[in-house]
């Protein structure tokens, strides 16, 4: 037998092995719940999603991106050419040389993989991933050896030549290592990753305009609400979890992880992946970092076993430490949706087990009783604003701009920002109306705490109320309200144009309807992106442009825009209150302090409360509208309430 035949034999064997593994994996995916998938659209979109969306994230890490282009590009090219050269035995140098080159490229890529492994940053997993570089390299080397004769540089030494034997062994080991990995190891990312791009449940996130980060509603009459076991996930979400490359970029961005709370988004995804492949697994062989604070913990699970439990793969605290900030999602090169998974898991805990920790159950109970988490009578929402004489939509019936007060109306910090906005807006001649006591909580918090039933109830009620009136746009100072009305309400039948007050203020300023004091000489300020305005709604620029109109001297925190660190106030985290050695808002204020700016400007009532609550020698916290009011050319006190 010629040495080319050996290559063929090894590759066919490996392919068979891979096929068995992959079929097993597919069976696992198929055990998930059904999902509506538009295969054709997904397949057509695949190249773009891969080359644009994935590339955009991967390219943020230059080293990894070059590494991936070389290793993956070389490997794919080599595999294509191998079919021709060794499969069909076309020993043309015109094919052999490119194949050799592909092998060299792969080899160089493998070298980069190994070099990174030599000094592995802790976010990367070890274990089988440590062998991955050797396997790719070995595969390329073995292939190269058996391709040399076809290039004509040397004669075929024959299979029994000791060097050939050694290379055959190397090729065999590496091919089987890679093939096995297609179902059970690192190579799985290629298959599941591609499939994930095709079947991704959030197709809109790949579109060029703003992201639509809606949370998927669930059928409240379903026999089981939310996700308990891996098999309760839709099958394409199981594929998604399998796409994880354990790169730890999510972990690196996670504010809860950084605060030492027992949450690691990577571990959440890996746990789903681990559990779906077997009836019973434990995480003793998990090769990444352990849950912070629970380093010695061992969790168990399986395809049909609960994921979240005291002894489960995911500790309950992990679920409730999440601020739903989406930093992990934003960082993931594999387009994985951690927050969706966390919300699905929370839904089961909340709706089926009633196992919400901390002060969250009390808040949800208040919400059920009073339609707001503060348990206040509906009429109280207007208490802080009576002197503004805001027209009630009930009386005026139509308005251009409907001001949605939100639950910030019950909180002194939120009230201040809202009053400032109303003052500035009116000063510029804008007319606003409110729903007053007809306004209920949007249900946003309930939804994020997994209480989908309350969310749907409140959304339906609010949508029914809004249907009675005419208005062009809804404006709010609260990005959580904005996100809820803009992204979550359409699936419930409510379609509105919703704008953040910063956008309205920018419009007014750009139209010349607001005149500011000269901005020179004002102390430097830095802007904190609210997660729900930034990552959830893609609005990074408007608030910055507005601030720049007030004067020079805006500086950026190291983490800003898409990578901004959460204030700690989202997703009900302040209510579930999972302890950790550090506090997220403290860390954010330290970020702000490092800029040496005198003021950190916030654009969300939750951020204001969280960051204002940090005591010590830190920059002052000001809400955008408050700052705009203070910087109007007319002294703020002259701007009538």
């Amino acid at each position, binding site marked *: 037998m010629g040495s080319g035949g050996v290559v063929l034999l090894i590759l066919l064997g490996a392919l068979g092995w891979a096929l068995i593994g992959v079929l097993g994996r597919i069976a696992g995916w198929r055990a998930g719940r059904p999902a509506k998938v538009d295969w054709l659209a997904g397949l057509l979109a695949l190249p773009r999603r891969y080359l644009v969306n994935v590339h955009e994230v991967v390219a943020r890490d230059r080293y990894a991106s070059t590494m991936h282009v070389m290793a993956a590009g070389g490997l794919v090219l080599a595999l294509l050419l191998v079919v021709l050269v060794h499969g069909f035995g076309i020993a043309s140098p015109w094919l052999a040389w490119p194949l050799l080159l592909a092998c060299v490229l792969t080899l160089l890529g493998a070298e980069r993989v190994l070099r990174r492994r030599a000094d592995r940053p802790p976010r990367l997993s070890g274990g089988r991933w440590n062998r991955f570089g050797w396997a790719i390299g070995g595969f390329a080397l073995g292939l190269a050896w058996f391709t040399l004769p076809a290039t004509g540089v040397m004669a075929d030494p024959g299979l029994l030549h000791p060097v050939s034997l050694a290379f055959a062994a190397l090729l065999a080991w590496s091919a089987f290592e890679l093939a096995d990995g297609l179902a059970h190891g690192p190579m799985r990312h290629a298959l599941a990753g591609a499939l994930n791009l095709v079947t991704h449940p959030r197709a809109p996130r790949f579109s060029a305009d703003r992201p639509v980060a809606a949370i998927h509603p669930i059928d409240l009459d379903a026999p089981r609400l939310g996700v308990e076991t891996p098999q309760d996930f839709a099958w394409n979400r199981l594929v998604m979890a399998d796409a994880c490359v354990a790169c730890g970029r999510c972990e690196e961005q996670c504010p809860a992880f950084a605060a030492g709370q027992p949450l690691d988004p990577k571990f959440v995804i890996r746990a789903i992946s681990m559990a779906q492949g077997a009836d019973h697994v434990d995480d003793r062989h998990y090769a990444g970092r352990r849950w912070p604070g629970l380093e010695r913990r061992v969790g168990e699970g399986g395809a049909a076993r609960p994921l979240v439990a005291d002894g489960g793969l995911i500790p309950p605290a992990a679920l409730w430490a999440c601020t739903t900030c989406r930093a992990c999602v934003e960082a993931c090169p594999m387009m994985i949706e951690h927050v969706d998974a966390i919300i699905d898991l929370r839904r089961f805990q909340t709706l089926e087990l009633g196992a919400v920790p901390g002060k969250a159950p009390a808040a949800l109970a208040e919400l059920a009783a009073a339609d707001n988490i503060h348990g206040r009578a509906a009429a109280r929402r*207007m208490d802080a604003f009576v*002197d503004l004489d805001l027209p009630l939509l009930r009386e005026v019936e139509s308005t251009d701009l409907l001001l949605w007060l939100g639950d910030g109306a019950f909180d*002194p*910090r939120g009230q201040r920002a809202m009053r400032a906005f109303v003052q500035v807006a009116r000063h510029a001649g804008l007319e606003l109306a409110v729903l007053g006591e007809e306004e209920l909580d949007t249900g946003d918090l309930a939804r994020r705490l997994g209480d989908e039933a309350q969310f749907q109830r409140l959304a339906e009620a609010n949508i029914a109320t809004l249907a009675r009136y005419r208005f062009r746009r809804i404006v709010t100072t609260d990005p959580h309200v904005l996100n809820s009305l803009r992204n979550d309400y359409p699936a419930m039948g409510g379609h509105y144009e919703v704008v953040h007050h910063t956008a309205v203020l920018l419009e007014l300023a750009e139209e010349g309807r607001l005149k500011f004091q000269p901005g020179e000489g004002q102390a430097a300020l830095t802007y904190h992106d609210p997660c729900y305005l930034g990552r959830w709604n893609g609005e990074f620029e408007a608030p910055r442009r507005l601030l720049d109109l007030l004067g020079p001297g805006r500086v950026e925190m190291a983490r800003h825009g898409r990578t901004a660190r959460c204030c700690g106030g989202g997703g009900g985290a302040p209510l579930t209150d999972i302890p950790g050695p550090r506090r997220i808002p403290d860390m954010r204020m330290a970020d702000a302090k490092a800029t040496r700016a005198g003021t950190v400007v916030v654009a969300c009532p939750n951020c204001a409360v969280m960051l*204002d609550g940090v005591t010590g020698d830190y920059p002052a916290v000001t809400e955008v509208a408050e700052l705009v009011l203070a910087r109007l050319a007319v002294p703020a*006190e002259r701007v*009538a309430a």
Partner: protein
Amino acid sequence: MASTDALFQPLTIRRCTIRNRVMSTSHAPSYGKDGMPQLRYQLYHEEKAKGGIGLTSVGGSSSVAPDSPAALWNQLDIGEDKVIPFLQEFSERVHRHGAKIFCQITHMGRRTRWDAENWMATIAPSPLREPSHRSFPKEMEDWDIRRVQQDYAAAARRLKEGGFDGVEVLADSHLPGQFWSPHVNRRTDGYGGSTENRSRFTLELFEQVRKAIGDDMVFGIRMSGDELLDDGITPEEAIKLARIHVGQGCIDYLNINCSHVYTERGLANLIPNMSMPVAPYLALASLIKREIGTVPVFHAGRIPDVNTAARAVAEGHVDMVAMTRAHIADPHIVNKLREGRVDDIRQCVGAGYCIDRIYVGGDAICIQNPATGREATLPHIVPKGQGGKKVVVIGGGPAGMEAARVSAERGHQVVLFEKAGALGGQITLAGKADWREGLNGITRWLQGQLRKLGVDVRLATLATVEAVEAEDPDIVVVATGGHPNLNEVKAQPGHVVSTWDILNGTVAPGENVLLFDDHADHHGPSVASFLVKRGSKVEIVTPERKLMVEVGMTNFPHYLRDLYKSKAVITPDTRLTEVYPEGNKLVAVLVNEYTDEEEERVVDQVVVEHGTLPDDEIYFRLKPLSRNLGEVDMRRLRDRLPQEIVRHPDGRFMLFRVGDAVACRNIHAALYDSLRLCLTF
């Protein structure tokens, strides 16, 4: 936060929705000009509206008729239509900031002077002398009753035309209350005798007022729930009166007071000073609210802090809580509370300087807030300036602390030297006199502000010329205060001691003490009370016609009560000229101011209060090094313009003196000196 939530629930009365439960009750700050609320008056209340108050009730004791002269405390005259444009401007100004505005109207009856303004006889239900104004009133005839009622109704109508949200009739101790109180009303006709008869005047009056203002406007009354007089209105009687009048359906709220103001002692109880506990009469207001129940109850009476205020509302004692003097001290209370800056609230200390000033000196100003009543020229929030200068302040008494605060607010870098181990200066000293302890609140606030502003406060550090020069300052403010002046009495050193020595404890109180008060302010009587409480037998001697002529009505009755109770002897019209030893005793030589007759006292200790002389050594050492040689352009100072005098161009800094380092005055003067000067830095 949750605990002060109760204050942030709006209250709706008729069509008037008040945004929160904090109000200022009507008071007469003596800012009226020709009987009209002109700019100063309006700005004073606009500031409270800006500061977030729910309701400001203005025009304390505003006059409705010519024989209730407005001129007495520069009150408002609502008795003529010419006031209406002023009222309109006023109400717009307050409404602009979302607050509501009421006005009190009154006929003072016998509680005024016949020789003021129009020289008309005072009137009352019965011809009984009013002690406080020494007036002998005319007993009202039928047509007096009629015209006064019509005057009230006409005044109420003017307020309505002026855009006011409400009108309040002041009953207690004024004409309506004079009808109600058996202490004053001895009539035997239909307007005297039974409670019903004593209510006839007001029932007729209230009906006419309501008719004049229609259904929309709020109409309430201020009444005493207990006159604290044996034959006056008791709580039972007050409840009866309240029931009768609320039952009539014309009035919308009851504003409950306690005590009376027929005498100065009564007034001292009505407006509790710092010697009295916080919220002394809340229980009385609460009682009336419980008994009546159908209309909201307002109440004022030494509620200086937001926690007490919140409790009063949250526990249901009252519906609106007044923080009247509290807003004189800080008109921005509500905003600060809302903004979570409770620490920044300058809390009223209850010195009563504001109210005392309308009886002694003229206008209501706050001992600790020089901007109050001067809103046209002084800001309550010091605007940030260019900054960039280095300011050295020498002395940490009120003048120095205020200079440091204002300079730092302007954005400058400030160093404050204080030779003692703590800030406060003479405030700390004055605060040692038992109930005067409350004065330390002034220091606490200033100190807190200095901390927030990052002023470099160097305690226990004497400012030498070298130390000052080492800071390379652009401006030096000398606020070194003074030391007691004992030079005016002939005596060997040690034979007379100062009031400071006594308060500081550097000299133990003697057994028989003669205290010579040649200052006529708080110093003498507060040290005399300090001494008697520590067992001394005290004779207090003054060349004045009476003791403490500079101390007003909310304070002097408390001192006199203490002194008389402890059998202190008060000797007016007499001057201490000499002290000499005799054995282990001292002989004090006293001379009568009018006869020159001499008498002597043999005592153990002689304490002299004769003000202070400036501690000006460092000032005079720095003077030749300064650019202005210490000179101040008085006109520019008055007009709040920057000081620009240069007498010594090589000088490295501008030099100023403030407070008692200039001359012996008081806390307010010290703060005012610094505020208006340093605002221009």
